[in-house]
C-alpha cells in the first residue's frame, strides 16, 4: 500500500478499531496495459456514519462502490467488513443503484416484498407483506404500492429502490448517485426523508454524489477523489456542521460557506492538481 504522504496524510494511520468497513489500498485496473482507474484508496466507515464520495465523472466512484458491494473485485488491496474480507455481494450490504434497477414486471410492493423474502426466507407470507408495506410507507409510497415502475415517476421509483435496500436491514447502505436523475424539488424532499430514516435507524451509509450541497447536507464525512486516470483519494473532510442541520437553515450555520468553498475549490482546481502530483 503506497500512499503519497502529501496527498493523504491521514491514511498512513492504522485503521480505526471500531470501523465497520475498512478499505485498504484498493485499486482497479480494467486493462492490464493502461493505467489503473484508481489506486491506493483507503478509508474507514464507522458504524452509524454517513459518508459521501465526491469526484469528477469517470474517476472510478462507481467502481469503488461496486467493490464495496462485492459485485466487482479490486485489482489490488482489499475490503474488510466486520473483520471479514468482502469476496462477493451479500445481504449485509444494501445497494441503491445508479439507475433504479427495479424489476419492471413487479409492482412497487412486489419489488420490496421480493427483497424482504430474500432476507427473511422463513417468514410467514403476511409478515413479509406487512414489512414491505412498512418500508414503502416510510418513503411515503402507501398510495402507489400497487403500481408498476413504468407507472411511477422518477422520484417514486428511486424511493422504491431505497425502500428495497432498507427493508433488508443491511449493515451498510451503498448508494450510487441515487438522486442523480431527479429534479431539485423532489431531490430535496427525498434527501430529507433519507436523513430522517437514517437518523432513526442509525443506518451506516456510503453514498456517491456529484452534488456538493447534497454531500454537505447528508454527510458526516466527505471523501474527495482526484481526477482519473489513476485517481486517488485526495481528502477526507469532516463535516463541521451540526447534525441537527436542515436544508433550509443549513447555509446560516457557521462554517457552511468555508466548508462548501473548500469542496467546490477542490472539485474545480485541486482535483486536477492532485492528479498531476500523483502521476508526477
Amino acid at each position: 500500500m503506497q500512499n503519497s504522504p502529501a496527498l493523504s496524510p491521514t491514511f498512513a494511520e492504522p485503521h480505526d478499531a471500531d470501523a465497520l468497513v475498512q478499505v485498504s489500498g484498493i485499486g482497479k485496473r480494467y486493462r492490464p496495459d493502461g493505467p489503473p482507474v484508481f489506486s491506493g484508496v483507503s478509508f474507514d466507515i464507522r458504524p452509524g456514519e454517513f459518508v459521501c464520495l465526491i469526484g469528477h465523472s469517470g474517476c472510478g466512484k462507481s467502481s469503488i462502490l461496486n467493490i464495496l458491494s462485492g459485485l466487482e473485485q479490486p485489482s489490488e488491496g482489499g475490503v474488510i467488513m466486520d473483520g471479514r474480507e468482502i469476496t462477493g455481494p451479500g445481504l449485509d450490504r444494501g445497494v441503491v443503484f445508479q439507475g433504479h434497477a427495479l424489476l419492471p414486471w413487479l409492482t412497487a410492493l412486489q419489488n420490496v416484498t421480493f427483497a424482504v423474502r430474500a432476507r427473511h426466507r422463513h417468514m410467514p407470507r403476511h409478515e413479509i407483506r406487512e414489512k414491505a408495506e412498512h418500508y414503502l410507507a416510510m418513503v411515503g409510497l402507501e398510495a402507489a404500492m400497487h403500481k408498476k415502475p413504468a407507472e411511477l415517476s422518477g422520484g417514486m421509483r428511486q424511493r422504491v429502490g431505497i425502500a428495497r435496500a432498507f427493508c433488508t436491514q443491511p449493515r451498510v447502505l451503498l448508494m450510487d448517485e441515487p438522486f442523480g436523475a431527479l429534479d431539485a424539488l423532489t431531490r430535496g424532499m427525498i434527501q430529507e426523508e433519507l436523513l430522517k430514516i437514517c437518523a432513526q435507524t442509525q443506518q451506516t451509509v456510503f453514498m456517491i454524489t456529484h452534488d456538493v450541497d447534497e454531500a454537505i447536507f447528508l454527510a458526516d464525512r466527505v471523501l474527495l477523489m482526484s481526477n482519473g486516470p489513476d485517481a486517488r483519494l485526495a481528502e477526507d473532510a469532516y463535516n463541521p456542521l451540526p447534525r441537527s442541520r436542515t436544508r433550509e437553515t443549513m447555509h446560516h450555520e457557521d462554517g457552511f460557506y468555508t466548508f462548501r468553498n473548500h469542496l467546490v475549490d477542490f472539485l474545480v482546481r485541486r482535483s486536477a492538481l492532485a492528479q498531476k502530483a500523483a502521476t508526477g
Partner: protein
Amino acid sequence: MLSQENRLSFFLSFASLLGVLLIWQFSTLPQASRSPYGIPDGNAEYQRLMGRSAVASTVRSDFPTPGAFARNAIEVLHAPFHNNGPNDRGIGWQLGASLLRVMIGYGLATLVAVPLGFVFGLQPVIQKALNPFVQILRPISPLAWMPIALYTIRDAELCAIFVIFICSLWPILLNTAFGVASIRREWLNVIRTLEVRWPQRLFFVLLPAAAPTILTGMRIGLGVAWLAIVAAEMLVGSSGIGYFVWNQWNNLSLSNVILAVLLIGLAGMALDAALAFVQRSVRYAE
C-alpha cells in the same frame, strides 16, 4: 362506437372480400371452350360430328364457383368429425389430427429449447461452442429431414412429429438464448446483492425478464411448425389436414381443397393469436 378510421378500414376489408368473391365468380362463369384446332366450338354440327353432344359445347370450369363452394362447405362442415375409416374422415377430424401432431412436436421442442436456451444465454462458452452446429442445422428445410427421419424412425406418425420438433426447435432456442443473454445487468446485480437462491432467480427474475423474447421465439416456432405439418402430411400422412388436401386434389375435389386451405389459414391464425395473448400477458414496460 367505431372511430372514423376503424369504420373506413372495416369498409375496405369488406370491399376487398367482395372484390375477391366477384373476381372468383366471373372467372368461374361457364364459358365457351376453345378447340385446339381453331374451329369455333359453338358450331353444334361440328361438335356432333366429333361425337360430342351439343350441350357440352359450353363446358363449365373445374374450378367451383363461390356458390358451389359455399354449398359444398356447408355440407362438409355439417359433420366435420365423422369417421368412416381411414379413407373417409371429416375435415374437422383431419384438422384435429394435425393440431395434435403439432402440439406434441412443438411441445417437445419447447421443453428442449427453453432450458437449452437458458444454458446458452447464461453460459456464453457453451453458446459459442454449439453455435456453429445450430447455425448449420437451422436453415435446413424441415422436409429435407424427411428421408433421414423415415429411414431411422420408420414410423410415419413419429416422423411427422419429429419434423415439427426439429423445425420449431431453432427459433425457440435462439430467441431464448438471446432473451436470457440480454437480461439487464442491473437486475442480475440486484439478485446477487439480495443473495437470491437459484430456483427463485430462475423463476422470479430470469424467466419473467426473458419471457417476452422467449414468446417471440415460440410464436415463430409455432408458425414454422404449422407450415411444415401440412407439407409433411402430404408426404407421409394417412391422416391430417395436409393429407386431406392431397387426397382431395387426387379426387379432383377442388371445393374441398379450397375449404381445407382456408381452414389451415384460420387455424394458423388462431394458434398465433393464442400465443400473442400469452405474450401480451408477460410483456412489461421498462
